[in-house]
Structure formats: structure tokens, C-alpha cells
């Protein structure tokens, strides 16, 4: 099938821009409140099967047991082990801000100490040659005065030597 050629074609440039105010919901809201006020990263555990969730979850995804009782929550990290990572070298538009991503941009998926759960966040180190799965990392938090109760209260993961 061959397309016929035509001298000029018309394009329409449009940008979808929807402002959003997403409710985090209660367990995740409490996670952010703890992060902001006390600098703690919390996980919660299913009372029935013992599965751990970070950030905390409402009901266990496996058996639907309620996991919201606060006294069962466990603080995890800030140290942990890098499970896997990726480094983005090509910039693209960040849909939540409309700005271009600053590259290189490294993201680590980290298993935090204290409970078997993972958290994904930016890494300070962006050289893929210097990042190895299995290495030890630590979540660095912003100073209390700068924390706003969102995921950016954690600045990034840094590589640590133990």
C-alpha cells in the first residue's frame, strides 16, 4: 500500500493540561504526615499473612485483611539494599510539571532495612558504572523545616560504605 503524496499537510498542535489535586487517602496520608513530622518511613503489615507494604496500604492485596491499625506499623530504613536501578539519559517531558526531566536521572528500587518491602526513589549517583545491585544505600531526608508531606521530603538515596 503506497501513500499518495501531497504538498502540504495540516497539523494541529494541542496541549492537554489538566490541573489535579489527588487525595492520597488515609494510609498514604499518614505515611506522608510521619515523613514530614518525624522523618520516619513507615510500612505496614497484613495481620493475616504477614505481607509488608511500603507505603502503607489499606487492605492486603492477597487476602483483603484490613492493615490500617497504626500500632502495627513498622518504621523502615532509612538504610537499605539496592535491588535494581535504572538511569535515564534521554530527557522527556515530566507530565506532572510540564518541564523537561533533568538528565542523567537515576532511580533505585531499594529494599529497606527493617521489613521486606521496597521503595523507589531518585539516586544521587547517576553514573551507571558506579551503581551495583546489592550495594548499600541510605535515604536522605530534607531538613524538617523544608518537608511538605510528600514524596520529595526524601531527597534521594546516597551510596554508603559499611
Amino acid at each position: 500500500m503506497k501513500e499518495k503524496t501531497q504538498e502540504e499537510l495540516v497539523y494541529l498542535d494541542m496541549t492537554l493540561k489538566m490541573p489535579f489535586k489527588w487525595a492520597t487517602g488515609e494510609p498514604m496520608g499518614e505515611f506522608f504526615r510521619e515523613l514530614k513530622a518525624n522523618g520516619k518511613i513507615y510500612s505496614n503489615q497484613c495481620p493475616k499473612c504477614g505481607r509488608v507494604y511500603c507505603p502503607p496500604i489499606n487492605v492486603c492485596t492477597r487476602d483483603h485483611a484490613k492493615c490500617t491499625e497504626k500500632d502495627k506499623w513498622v518504621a523502615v530504613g532509612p538504610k537499605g539494599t539496592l535491588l535494581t536501578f535504572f538511569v535515564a539519559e534521554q530527557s522527556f517531558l515530566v507530565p506532572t510539571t510540564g518541564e523537561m526531566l533533568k538528565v542523567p536521572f537515576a532511580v533505585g528500587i531499594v529494599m529497606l532495612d527493617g521489613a521486606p518491602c521496597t521503595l523507589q526513589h531518585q539516586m544521587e549517583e547517576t553514573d551507571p558504572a558506579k551503581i551495583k545491585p546489592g550495594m548499600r544505600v541510605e535515604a536522605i531526608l530534607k531538613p524538617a523545616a523544608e518537608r511538605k508531606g510528600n514524596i520529595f521530603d526524601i531527597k534521594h538515596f546516597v551510596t554508603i560504605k559499611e
Partner: protein
Amino acid sequence: MANEIKKEPMFTQGFVIMPYKYSVGSLASKFFIDLRDKKKITAAKCPKCGFVNFPPRSVCPKCFSKIEDLVELPGTGTLVTFTQVHYDSAVQAVKPPYAMGVIKMDGADTSMVHFLGDVDFKNLKAGMKLEPVFTEKRNANILDIKYFKPAGK
């Protein structure tokens, strides 16, 4: 449950921003270029059943045949229905209050939505004859027609 948490609602504020560049396709390109360069209004005539669709789309709404060519319309039309918009919104192209209508072009079997101008809202009436007013600086899009006004006014 005593130790259930519920303090204050928390939110994530941000946007969903996505840029798009839409192809209007071969047939609609011709329509927009005619509009921009010649102030000519064209429609799509089905080679099979003769149904004239406007604004021109390459598939016949009546018999599902493919349409590859445009026919020129006289450019005048009739008002089918109308409204006057009084509220602001993030997507509006002009400031309210303004009037919009569904306009059936002479020689076409379907109608289109566009702005109405040069007329008092209370004087608008279904069935009145209209003609297009073109935008001075035209960019090959639907806003190259500024609005429709009462014919001969």
C-alpha cells in the same frame, strides 16, 4: 477501632500535561488550506451515494464509503440551533458572553458548530440565513472562520 488514623486530608497537587501534534489527514488538509488561502468552503461528497458531509470527513456518515475529493459550497448557510454562553472555562477560545450555533451550510447534508457574531442574541432565530466572516490572519484551522453573521448584513 481506636487506633485508626484519620487526621487531615492529604493531597498531591500537580498536572497531567501532554503535548500532541494531530494529523488532520489528507482530505481535511485540503479543506483547511482552501479555507486559509482562498476563503473557500468545501465539503466531502460521497462518490457512491452522493451524500455531502460537512465539515468534510473522508468517510461517508451515510454509507461508510471512502471519500477522497472535495466539492465547493456556496458558503452561505442556515441556523439550526444556538446558545449564548455566559460562564468562563479553561478551554474557551473567546471571552463570554458569546453566541454559538449549529449551522447547516447550503449544499451540505450535515451541519457544523461555530461562533455567531454581528448579531444581538435576542435576534437569533432558527432558520435565519448566515454567512461566514473570515479571520484576517489565517492558520489553516477551524478558527480561520471567525464567526457566522446574518447573511447580507
